[in-house]
């Protein structure tokens, strides 16, 4: 899994404050910076390669059978979209991710909160969870199929497992790294435990919680592919498998592009939806 520290060292990796600020919402909110022409440099390589390849196939220098030119991929994507097939597959995939994400993130938040806020519970829960985390999640697939059948339930379960761990680690680590000095402010004002949690702990962990949810969502997208590989009759993962079996690389690439766009859209939606919660961080980010 990608770059999560263990909860013993919550400040490792990308949970550094700056990293947190940058990841919790990547683009500056509110005041937009003046457009920077240098950003366009990033397009230079992919667009250049695409144009070169298009030209090579067009002029007969290459066949483009295994690596179709951009125009053919676009045509395939368009055909899939027009017949409505693309939406059927995309919505099947999105639905699975949503279900798995809600279950996995919900459990990750709940268990992470327990483990982060009680020393005793942490000692009970964390070793087991760390051990389970060490198992490559795909290894659960046969068991999930035996338990839950080959249809939706086992797929959603696999995605939920994938989402659970980064969210659990992120939330527990965030709670452990809350500034003790701010908690003390809560004590001075004689907040009850519930109020301390609501008025100090919760806002303090939100930025890192958003990051945890984002990495959970990213893993959700990773695992939905695995889940759909294990046998599905619809879904973008099915389009991938189908494209391979039918020898249609353009369909595979079309599905990959659809994945990329949906993944980016879902991530942006999450960032956008949680932005009001971490708005106070904007200031810090603009100063970076």
């Amino acid at each position, binding site marked *: 899994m990608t770059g999560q520290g263990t909860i013993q060292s919550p400040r490792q990796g990308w949970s550094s404050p700056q990293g947190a600020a940058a990841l919790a919402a990547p683009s500056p909110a509110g005041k937009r910076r003046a457009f920077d022409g240098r950003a366009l440099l990033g397009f230079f390589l992919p667009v250049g390669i695409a144009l070169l390849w298009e030209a090579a196939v067009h002029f007969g220098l290459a066949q483009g059978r295994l690596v179709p030119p951009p125009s053919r991929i676009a045509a395939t994507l368009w055909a899939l979209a027009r017949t409505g097939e693309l939406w059927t597959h995309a919505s099947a995939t999105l639905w699975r991710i949503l279900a798995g994400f809600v279950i996995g993130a919900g459990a990750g938040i709940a268990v992470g909160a327990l483990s982060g806020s009680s020393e005793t519970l942490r000692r009970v829960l964390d070793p087991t969870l760390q051990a389970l985390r060490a198992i490559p999640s795909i290894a659960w697939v046969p068991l999930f199929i035996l338990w839950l059948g080959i249809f939706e339930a086992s797929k959603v379960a696999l995605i939920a497992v994938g989402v659970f761990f980064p969210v659990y680690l992120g939330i527990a680590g965030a709670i452990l790294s809350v500034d003790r000095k701010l908690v003390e402010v809560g004590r001075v004002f004689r907040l009850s435990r519930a109020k301390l949690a609501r008025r*100090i702990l919760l806002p303090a962990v939100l930025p890192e919680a958003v990051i945890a949810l984002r990495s959970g969502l990213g893993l959700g997208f990773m695992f939905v592919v695995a889940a759909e590989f294990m046998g599905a009759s619809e879904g973008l993962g099915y389009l991938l498998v189908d494209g391979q079996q039918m020898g249609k690389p353009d369909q595979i690439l079309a599905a990959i592009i659809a994945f990329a766009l949906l993944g980016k859209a879902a991530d942006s939606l999450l960032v956008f939806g949680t932005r009001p919660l971490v708005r106070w961080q904007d200031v810090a980010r603009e100063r970076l």
Partner: protein
Amino acid sequence: MLNLSHLSKTYADGTRALTDINLSVRESEIVALIGGSGCGKTTLLRLIAGLDRASAGAIRLDGETIHEPHPAVGIVFQEPRLLPWLTVADNVAFGLDHLDRNERKARVAHALEKIGLAEHGTRWPRDLSGGQQQRVAIARAFVMHPKVLLLDEPFSALDAFTRASLHEHLLGLWEETRPTVVLVTHDVQEAVTLADRAIIMQPKPGRIFDELPLALARPRDRAALPFESAVRRVLAALDQSLNPVQASPQRERDREAAALWW
């Protein structure tokens, strides 16, 4: 009245941060605790704030024993400790949950005006300078109308100009509700500017070495002779506390002469 009797604090690692502290602070009195690092000044304030437990002795506020944070005791830490997710105004209002909306707003607005940040209520703490943040922290403590206000080197991180203006803001707020103030400081000028009494502390183990009244008229003029001689008396006492073995009669006479001087 705030009363500390036979107060001691030994930390779990055996450090004797305070031994047998006896001190009474009158209502509305401003007392300055002076001493180098490690004298137990922070420890003393944390005990009065109810954030730590004393190993022995008692703290009483108007007869009531304090062993946990008390609603009538406020503290300003060395760092502002503002909550970064609340605006300046919401930070000041943090402890005013029990008031209704209008009253809360009025009190916050008044406090912000007193500290010269009336225009800054909607800004984020990170937008403020260190001195402004510390003012907000002071306002956050003052709006609670505490009977006792504890200040732990609140201005030590600031430059001399900022510090002088903060002294005025602090006295301005103090005038309104006249709380008892215990101020920890490294700065003798600051002590003489603000306090009615200077308590000089010594380390290892932390204890009170001496105390000097600073009964100068307010507002205090830093350029006036009484001010300067008070500063000198405090400095002399500090010297003695640092080097008690050399407390020769000569020094004693100097001190008396200085006392006569004003």
